[in-house]
């Protein structure tokens, strides 16, 4: 059953009043030079940043606040200021042959950055703001791709490693998640969570706060500004606004830093495939920057050809990341075993039959007691212990609780050899293939050189070249050929 292990983990967390670990490996990278980025937008204003806190892991933030982000020039100054920091970070990474990593508190922030990037990279009024939008696009375009390392949400990262005793949707609030992972002493966990829930942890302030504190200050500032008040007064009024917002953004910044600390201190070994994921990230970053240098346009809407490339890359990443967790993480593997994504059992009856003087066939049976199995005849499976060993399933036979799978070895009979009777073996349909994307992209480039008329909106079907008179009964004519 899908997700039964996670259900049990949530049950355990509920029972114990604290989150339980659901990973044996760290599933994403923590770059030592990563940026922690916490913006707050103004409610109802989808492309603004009112205040932003930004800093390196383990360091205090730099903060930039504008009095009213609806005032375009002020807003652009903030974007340019933030853009300069991002540019610096990108430059350092590029020189080191690395990739830039940005941490935010939750998915809502990632979405907000995406809106900003989608909008500002087409800015025609201010070059610095346009550049900010373009650079940010690296993170936001990578974000939907599984296994990416460029834009990490603290909630997402924690959720991969911990199960809480609340609803999955509630885990998107970083405060409640932290309350489950490190519950305060002597407090009922549900009370602690209810309290934590009230502290804004996303990209917006609390409506009540806006009403009681922020709005009067912003209104006073604007009135003064319109009335032509002196700079000193405007500064003071802007200062009041920053005073109100700063604690909010600092607590989000601190929460995000705390999440990173928790993940580092778990002391988990890295997922073996993390090396490959980071390698992919470096390649992607390099090609992104080269494309910016060359002045290529980042589209908002894809034509069929780039869409095919992007979707293929995303599917490849999804398959590989899933396979990587299944192969590399203990809990990932347990999940797969319970859901029948892997076959786990004892080898019986290994045998070698001679097909011709120099050709042999190697086969064995795998006896499994898994309740759920997805394996079918003619499936191709690889051994998780040594992926060089690959088999085709000749038959699946279930008797009550026992399933017997007859397998024919297709690869690795020399390198790995026939498994001995009684050994346990675990087979899976997919193992990660990190070169596949390169091959697939090459094939796509080759196949998609010319756009066929079917995929060109302006294109018209080729004119009928060879219309022939059909026979009176074409069906009878074909049937006659039987």
């Amino acid at each position: 059953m899908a997700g039964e292990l996670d259900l049990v983990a949530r049950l355990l967390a509920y029972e114990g009043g604290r989150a339980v670990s659901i990973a044996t490996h760290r599933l994403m990278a923590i770059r030592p030079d990563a940026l922690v980025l916490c913006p707050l937008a103004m409610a109802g204003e989808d492309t603004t940043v009112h205040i932003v806190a930004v800093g390196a892991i383990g360091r205090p933030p730099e903060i930039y606040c504008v009095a009213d982000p609806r005032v375009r020039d002020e807003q652009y100054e903030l974007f340019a200021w933030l853009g300069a920091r991002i540019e610096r970070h990108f430059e350092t990474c590029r020189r080191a042959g690395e990739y830039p990593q940005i941490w935010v508190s939750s998915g809502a922030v990632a979405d907000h950055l995406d809106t900003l990037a989608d909008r500002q990279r087409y800015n025609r009024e201010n070059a610095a703001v346009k550049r900010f939008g373009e650079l940010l696009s690296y993170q936001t375009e990578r974000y939907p791709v599984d296994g990416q390392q460029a834009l990490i949400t603290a909630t997402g990262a924690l959720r991969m490693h911990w199960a809480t005793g609340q609803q999955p949707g509630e885990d998107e609030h970083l405060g409640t998640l932290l309350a489950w992972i490190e519950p305060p002493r002597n407090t009922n966990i549900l009370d602690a969570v209810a309290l934590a829930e009230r502290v804004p942890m996303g990209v917006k302030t609390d409506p009540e706060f806006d009403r009681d504190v922020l709005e009067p200050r912003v209104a006073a500032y604007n009135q003064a500004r319109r009335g032509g008040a002196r700079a000193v007064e405007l500064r003071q009024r802007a200062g009041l606004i920053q005073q109100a917002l700063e604690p909010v953004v600092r607590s989000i910044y601190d929460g995000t830093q705390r999440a990173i600390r928790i993940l580092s201190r778990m002391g988990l070994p890295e997922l073996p495939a993390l090396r490959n994921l980071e390698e992919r990230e470096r390649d992607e970053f390099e090609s992104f920057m080269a494309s910016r240098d060359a002045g290529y346009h980042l589209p908002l809407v894809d034509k069929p050809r780039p869409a095919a490339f992007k979707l293929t890359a995303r599917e490849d990443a999804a398959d590989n990341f899933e396979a990587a967790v299944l192969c590399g993480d203990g809990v990932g593997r347990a999940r797969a075993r319970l859901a029948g994504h892997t076959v786990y059992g004892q080898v019986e009856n290994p045998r070698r039959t001679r097909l011709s003087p120099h050709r042999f066939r190697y086969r064995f049976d795998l006896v499994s007691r898994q309740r759920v199995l997805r394996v079918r005849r003619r499936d191709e499976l690889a051994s998780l212990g040594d992926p060089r060993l690959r088999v085709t399933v000749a038959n699946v036979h279930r008797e009550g609780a026992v399933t017997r799978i007859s397998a024919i070895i297709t690869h690795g009979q020399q390198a790995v050899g026939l498994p001995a009777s009684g050994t346990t073996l675990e087979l899976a349909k997919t193992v990660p293939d990190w070169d596949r994307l390169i091959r697939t992209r090459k094939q796509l480039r080759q196949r998609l050189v010319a756009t066929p008329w079917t995929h060109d909106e302006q294109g018209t079907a080729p004119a009928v070249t060879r219309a022939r008179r059909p026979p009176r009964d074409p069906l009878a004519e074909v049937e006659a050929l039987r």
Partner: protein
Amino acid sequence: MITARLARLRGSLLAEEPGARGLERVARNPGCQRLRALTMIGVTPATAMKTVYKEPDREGQSPFALAAGNRFERAVFENGAARLLELYRSAGRLTTAECKIVVVPELAPGATAATMARRRAETERLFQHKVRRDPRAPNIIVKARIPVALLGVPHDTEPDVLVAADSDAFYGPVEVKSYPDRAGKTNAADIRSACRQAAVAVIGLRHAVEQLRLGDPRQLVPAAADLVLRRPGSFRPTLRPMTLAGEVHSLERALDEAPRNLEELEALIDAITPGASLDEAEVLDAVPPNYVEACREHCALAPKCKQAAAACGDPVLIGSQAREELAAAGSLGRAVDLLRGRAQPRTAEERALQARLQQSLGEYRQAVGHGR
């Protein structure tokens, strides 16, 4: 008399005009008797939270969001709704000559009951023009006033815009929202609430067509509407036509069932304390809710219902999947006992559940490498 029955249930609470937003709420969670009860008596969950439970309502909108919404609406409607016209023209839905606009509140300014009655009358007059193919019939009606009946009690709604080309048989509703239109990335909850409010307008128009005997309501008013949203970071509108078969259907169903719901509610309350009303916390508590994950999105009472769910260890506390899978055990406490082997299964289903949970636990323990 229905109004008297409703007033009795309301007790000391004041009836509020629900508007489209309140009316669409009845279809959000058809399994929740508490929400249905409040909607029927004309009290919002937010008010119930404040006045019945005396807890601060944390819903509410930020003044900034309100201001942004107003600015967007102004941008769409100012200068003779120029931007709206432009939107429909470039979509090929209206021609240059089709620029007849009527702003209903301008025909009857003010906020008195008499004014509102006049707005309704003006709206009806315009509808009659349209059906008679009168060339004076406007192409755009701003803030028409249309009653929608819930339990036979009419509640006025004001669809932002009604639109029709001269050749169209009747008007279709337009919902103007300042939500950013980000194509496939648009916030799902935003689309949801815009579509559902537009569905209220469809139902209102159908009611009007029926009452005025203008023709076949379903034919004149198909289940469809236009959403006018906002291009991110600007005040320029976007036009998104939507079909609303599902939204209209679920709303109609909820409205149709209201009379039966009212009887059930009265029977339920009489069984607790005859003559009691919903302004008492204990009475409202006794009306069963149906707490699900989606409640937080639309109901101010969600925190209250969550507390109640926590008190009885409702599996929904840890998610919808648990609600399905742990149903045999009934509560989280029982499920934990089964998992830990502290309880003997009482039924075949519990036995099966215990076996599955324990198998998963075994795999989990083996994976994390210690005996939790």
